[in-house]
């Protein structure tokens, strides 16, 4: 097996790495944003429940949750390793993303909400048209951090046998006995994925920046 084949074998796992990330990150964003809105605007009881959710999911190692969902829960609902892994990473991420969105909402809210209500906008309208557009912008930098973490955590699904980058590196490393090359190749691919993602988000942040004089 030549070098090119070796590398492309490992790189072919990228599709699973990207797949897991593209399920975990958006599902975490969707759930995290909804929970953050409930946390900030849903009253005391909702805030308490959301706080509990956040504490629990941030307090468990992602891989433990992965095992619970795949080996215990998925027996009943026939969940594949890929989906069990992606969804449990999404759940963990939703707790972190909830905190990111909550922070952004809180730093916009208050006065901006009052200004909007004074014009006659209802509460939901004020959140939709005034608070959220500004909160999104504030959330991008910390969110880019979370995106990088989810890309890297996607390697955990290797433990369920999903043939993603790390799993492939492990397989070819074992069969060829070239462990260093195998894992270094995996490291480089992960790095490039994270680097490209944070660059893109950085560009998005600049593009969405609200113009102002220095």
């Amino acid at each position: 097996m030549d070098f090119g084949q070796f590398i492309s074998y490992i790189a072919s796992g990228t599709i699973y790495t990207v797949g897991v990330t593209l399920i975990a990150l958006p599902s975490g964003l969707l759930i995290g944003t909804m929970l953050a809105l409930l946390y900030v605007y849903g009253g005391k009881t909702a805030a308490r429940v959301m706080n509990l959710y956040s504490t629990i999911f941030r307090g468990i190692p992602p891989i433990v949750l992965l095992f619970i969902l795949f080996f215990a829960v998925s027996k009943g609902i026939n969940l594949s390793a890929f989906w069990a892994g992606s969804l449990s990473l999404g759940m963990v991420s939703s707790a972190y993303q909830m905190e990111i969105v909550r922070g952004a909402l809180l730093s916009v809210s208050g006065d901006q909400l009052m200004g909007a209500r004074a014009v006659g906008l209802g509460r939901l309208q004020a959140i939709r048209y005034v608070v959220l557009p500004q909160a999104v912008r504030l959330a991008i930098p910390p969110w880019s951090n979370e995106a990088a973490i989810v890309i890297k955590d996607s390697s955990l699904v290797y433990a369920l046998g999903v043939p993603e980058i790390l799993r492939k590196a492990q397989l070819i490393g074992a069969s060829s006995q070239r462990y260093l090359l195998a894992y270094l190749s995996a490291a480089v691919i992960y790095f490039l994925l994270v680097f490209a993602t944070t660059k893109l988000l950085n560009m998005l942040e600049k593009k969405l920046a609200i113009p102002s004089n220095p």
Partner: protein
Amino acid sequence: MPKPILTIKNLTKTYGENVIFQHLDLTVNEGDTIVIIGPSGTGKSTLLRCVNLLTRPNDGQIWLDDMEITAKGTDEDQVRQHIGMVFQNFLLFNHLTALGNVKLGLTRVKKMSDEAATKKAMHELARVGLADRANHYPGQLSGGQQQRVGIARALAMDPRIMLFDEPTSALDPELIGEVLEVMRQLSLDGMTMLVVTHEMGFAREVADRIVFMEKGYIVEEGSPDEMFNHPKFPRTREFLWKITELYGKKEKDAE
């Protein structure tokens, strides 16, 4: 016969043990400009917030025209459309241009078409002298310009009454004039206005009536002439003397 637009009766607001104001009565007639003055912490801003239902009073009633807006089941959003509010810190929407700020209420609350809203918003921006700044974001405008956008945004809703909560207090001295000039013109055009301010020049020149509030009570109210030249209570005289001297000194310093 003057027609009351805003009637406040027996209004009380407390935060826990802390009484902000008690048994307050005030009437604002159509076309009147009423200026409320008084030391900090006497409940002037809270009073305006009660009128706009941003804060609920504990007791008493407020009528807008013939409708009691403090009644249970009042649609707050409906009421606020008819009451324009201008804040000390402008509270412009930072992510929208001047035009976008003025348009938002028109398209989302009044459900106007984009075209009609743009036309109306441009008219209001021209009214405050900022038509050429329509596409600037708040961060690109001076404080005075931001506040004028704030006024245009409130005016665009065609309110029955405009509330001003210390509209020039956050501004650099050289920017105060342009805002006061817009307010003076508004008053001349017949807008009904309730203004909390420390600008004594504005109060003396523009107000139909001045209300002096202290420690949650209305100490005295009257025409600018009565208040400045023949105040009934020593406390009114003392406060006006102090504040006129203070601001006169600031103007001198600025020169």
